[in-house]
C-alpha cells in the first residue's frame, strides 16, 4: 500500500471513531436533556421534578426509554402508512444531521502520531479537527437540513389522519418557512464579515479580544442579527413561546398526537435534538463557538475548546428552559406578523448596516 494511502486510512478511521463517539454521546445527551429540562422546570416552579429513579432522578431517562419500548405500537386507522412511519425518521434524522457541520472543538487529535514505528498523518479531510465535516458551505447545509426537518412535521400531520395533527402540521410548516427566512438573512451579516460559510472559519474569526477582555464574538458586532436569530430559532425549534405545533391547549398534541411508543419517543428526542442543534448554532455563530481563554495552550488545546463549546451550549439550553418557564404562548397570526413585518425588515436593515460598519471600522 502506498504511504499516502496509509495516512488516508488512518484519517478515515479517526473520522469514523469520531462519528461513532459523537453519535453515542449525542443520543445520551439528548436523553438526559429531557431530565435537565424537567428538573429545571421543577426548580422554577417550586416543585422537585423527577427525582425518584436513581440518585437525583439520574436514571429517569433510561426508565422512560424502557417504558417507551414497552408501549404498544399503534397505527391509526386511515393513516397513510408510509408517510406516517417515515415522518419521525425524517424529523429525527434532520435533528442529528445538523450536527455534522457544527464545530464542537478546535484540534482534538495530534496532527501526526507515531504508531508502531511509523508516523501517521491525521490531517486529511480535517480528521483531527473538532468537526465531523468541515464543509465550505456548511451554513447552507444547516438550513437545507432544517428545511428537510419540516417535512417530518408536515408528513406527521398529513399521515396520521387527524384534524388536530393536520392543523399542527400546517402551523409548523408555515411558521418554519417564514422564520427560516429571517434566520438565514440574519446570518448574512456574519457571513459578510467572515467571508466564509464554513462554520469552522466563522468560529476561528471570533478569536481574540478587544481591550484584552471583551471577546470578539459576533453577538457584540452583530447585536441586531443576534436578537433576530435568537427569536427565529425559538420559532423554528417550536419552543415556548412559539410552540404552536404542539400547543397542548389548542391542538392537544399537534402533529405528534397519533404517535405512540418509539415513534413518539423519536419525535420527543428529535425535538430536544433540534433544541440542542439550535443552541449549538447560536453558540457557533454568535458566541464564539469553542473560543475561550487558553485554547492554544499545549495539552489543554485538545479538550478545553470542547469544554467551552459544551458549556456555552448548555447555558443556551438552560435559556430555552428558562423562557419556557416564564412566557405564555404567542398566537399564531401574531407570530406570522412578527416574522414578516418586523423580523424580516429588520434583517434587511442589518444587511444594509453591516457593510457600512465594515467599511467604516474595518473588521474591528
Amino acid at each position, binding site marked *: 500500500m502506498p504511504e499516502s494511502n496509509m495516512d488516508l486510512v488512518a484519517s478515515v478511521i479517526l473520522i469514523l471513531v469520531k462519528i461513532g463517539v459523537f453519535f453515542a454521546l449525542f443520543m445520551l445527551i439528548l436523553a438526559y436533556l429531557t431530565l435537565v429540562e424537567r428538573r429545571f422546570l421543577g426548580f422554577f*416552579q417550586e416543585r422537585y421534578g423527577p427525582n425518584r429513579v436513581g440518585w437525583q432522578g439520574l436514571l429517569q431517562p433510561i426508565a422512560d426509554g424502557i417504558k417507551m419500548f414497552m408501549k404498544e405500537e399503534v397505527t391509526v386507522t386511515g393513516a397513510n402508512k408510509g408517510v406516517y412511519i417515515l415522518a419521525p425518521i425524517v424529523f429525527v434524522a434532520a435533528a442529528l444531521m445538523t450536527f455534522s457541520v457544527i464545530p464542537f472543538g478546535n484540534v482534538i487529535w495530534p496532527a501526526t502520531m507515531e504508531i508502531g514505528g511509523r508516523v501517521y498523518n491525521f490531517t486529511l479531510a480535517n480528521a483531527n479537527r473538532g468537526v465531523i465535516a468541515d464543509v465550505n458551505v456548511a451554513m447552507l447545509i444547516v438550513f437545507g437540513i432544517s428545511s428537510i426537518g419540516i417535512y417530518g412535521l408536515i408528513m406527521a400531520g398529513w399521515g396520521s389522519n387527524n384534524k388536530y395533527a393536520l392543523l399542527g402540521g400546517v402551523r409548523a410548516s408555515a411558521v418554519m418557512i417564514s422564520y427560516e427566512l429571517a434566520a438565514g438573512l440574519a446570518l448574512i451579516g456574519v457571513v459578510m464579515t467572515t467571508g466564509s460559510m464554513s462554520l469552522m472559519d466563522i468560529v476561528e474569526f471570533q478569536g481574540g479580544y478587544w481591550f484584552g477582555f471583551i471577546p470578539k464574538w459576533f453577538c457584540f458586532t452583530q447585536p441586531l442579527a443576534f436578537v433576530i436569530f435568537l427569536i427565529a430559532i425559538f420559532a423554528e425549534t417550536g419552543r415556548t413561546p412559539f410552540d404552536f405545533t404542539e400547543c397542548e391547549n389548542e391542538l392537544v398534541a399537534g402533529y405528534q398526537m397519533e404517535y405512540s411508543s418509539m415513534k413518539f419517543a423519536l419525535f420527543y428526542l428529535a425535538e430536544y435534538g433540534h433544541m440542542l442543534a439550535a443552541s449549538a448554532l447560536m453558540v457557533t455563530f454568535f458566541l464564539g463557538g469553542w473560543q475561550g481563554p487558553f485554547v492554544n495552550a499545549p495539552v489543554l488545546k485538545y479538550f478545553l475548546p470542547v469544554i467551552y463549546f459544551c458549556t456555552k451550549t448548555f447555558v443556551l439550553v438552560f435559556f430555552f428552559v428558562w423562557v419556557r418557564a416564564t412566557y405564555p404562548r404567542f398566537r399564531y397570526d401574531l407570530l406570522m406578523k412578527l416574522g414578516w413585518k418586523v423580523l424580516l425588515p429588520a434583517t434587511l436593515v442589518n444587511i444594509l448596516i453591516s457593510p457600512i460598519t465594515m467599511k467604516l471600522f474595518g473588521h474591528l
Partner: protein
Amino acid sequence: MAEPEVKSNQAKRTHGETETMEINMGPQHPSTHGVFRAVVELDGETVVKVVPHLGYLHRGIEKIAENRTYHQVIPLTDRLDYMAGASNNLGYCLTVEKLLGIEVPPRGQYIRVILTELSRISSHLFWAGANAHDLGAMTPFFFMVREREQILFFLEMITGSRLTPSFFRIGGMSKDLPPEFRDECMKFVKAFPPRVDEYETLLTENKIWKSRTQGVGYLSAEDCIKLGISGPMARAAGIDWDLRKNQPYSGYDKFDFKPAVYHGCDAYDRYRVRMMEMRQSNEIIRQALESLPEGDHSVTMKGALKPPEGEVYMAIEAPRGELGFYIVSDGTAQPFRMKVRAPTFVNLQSLPKMCEGKLFSDMVAALSSVDLVLAEVDR
C-alpha cells in the same frame, strides 16, 4: 340584509372554493377543563361556528335532592361547584333558612364568610393558574397551587375535608372554629397580598399575555345583560353588580370592600377582576378574623326539619357569579323541587358569541375566561 347562502362542502368543492373543517373539541380536550364538548367549524384557523354540547357530567343532583331530607342535600351541593364547595353550602343553607325564617347568630355568619371567602380565593387561584396554562404559561399555575394548598389545609383544619367541606348546617355551622385557626389564618392573610403581586409580575404587564387576552372574548355589557351573565365576567364588562354589596346576605354588609369593576369586556379584564377579587376576599377575611364575635355558632334545631309550604329563591355571589337556589316546599321533610341556577351554565352561553369569527387560539382563551366547572354546568 339577505341571509348569506350556505353551501355544503360538496358544493364548494365543485366550485373550487375552500372548505371548512369541523373539529370536535372535547369532551377530552385539555382546555375544556372537564367534559365539555364543542363542535367547532374552522375555516383555516378562523372559527366559523361553535356548537356547545353539554351533559357529559349530568348526575341528576336536582332530582336526587327531591328524595333527601333538607340536611341531606348539603353534601350534594358541594359536588356542584367543587372548586368552591363552601359557596354552594352557603347558598343552599341560606335558601332553606329564608324558607324557615331563621337568622344565623353573628359568629356563625362570620365563620361562613371566612370559609366562603377562603374558597373564593382558592377557586380564583386555580382559575388563574389554569387560565395561564391554557395560554401556554406553565409556571403561574404551580405558584398559585402553592397558595391554594394552604387554603385547602385551612379548610381541612376547620372542616376535616379539603375540597368538599359539607360543614354548613341549616341554622349555622356544624362546629366552631378550632382554637389555633385564627392565628394560622392571620399569618396567611398577611402573607397573601405579596404573593398576588408575584403572580402579577409574571402576567399582568407581560406583552405576550396582553396580546393574547386583550380584546379577546369580547362581550359587551349589553350582551352580558341580555345573556344573563353574572359574576366576574359581568364585572369585567363594567357592570357594577356584586350580590355581596347589592343584596347583602350573611352579614356581608358589615365588611368594607369594593367590587372590582373593569371596562375592557375581554379576557384580560376578567383576569384582572379575579386578581382584584382575591385581594378583596383576603381583606374580608382579615376583617372577619379581627372582629370575630363571640357567641353561638349555630341556632339549635329541634326535631325533624319540616319547613312550611311555599317556595323561595335566594342567590349569593359565588366565585363564578350568581348562584341561586330555588326550592319548593310541600311541608314535608324533603324538598318538593330544587332548582340550581348555576352561574357557569348561564355564562357558558356566551361562548359562541365570543368566539365566532375569531381565531381558534382565541377560542381557547375565551373559553378559559368563562371559568368553567362542568360539575356545576351539568349538575
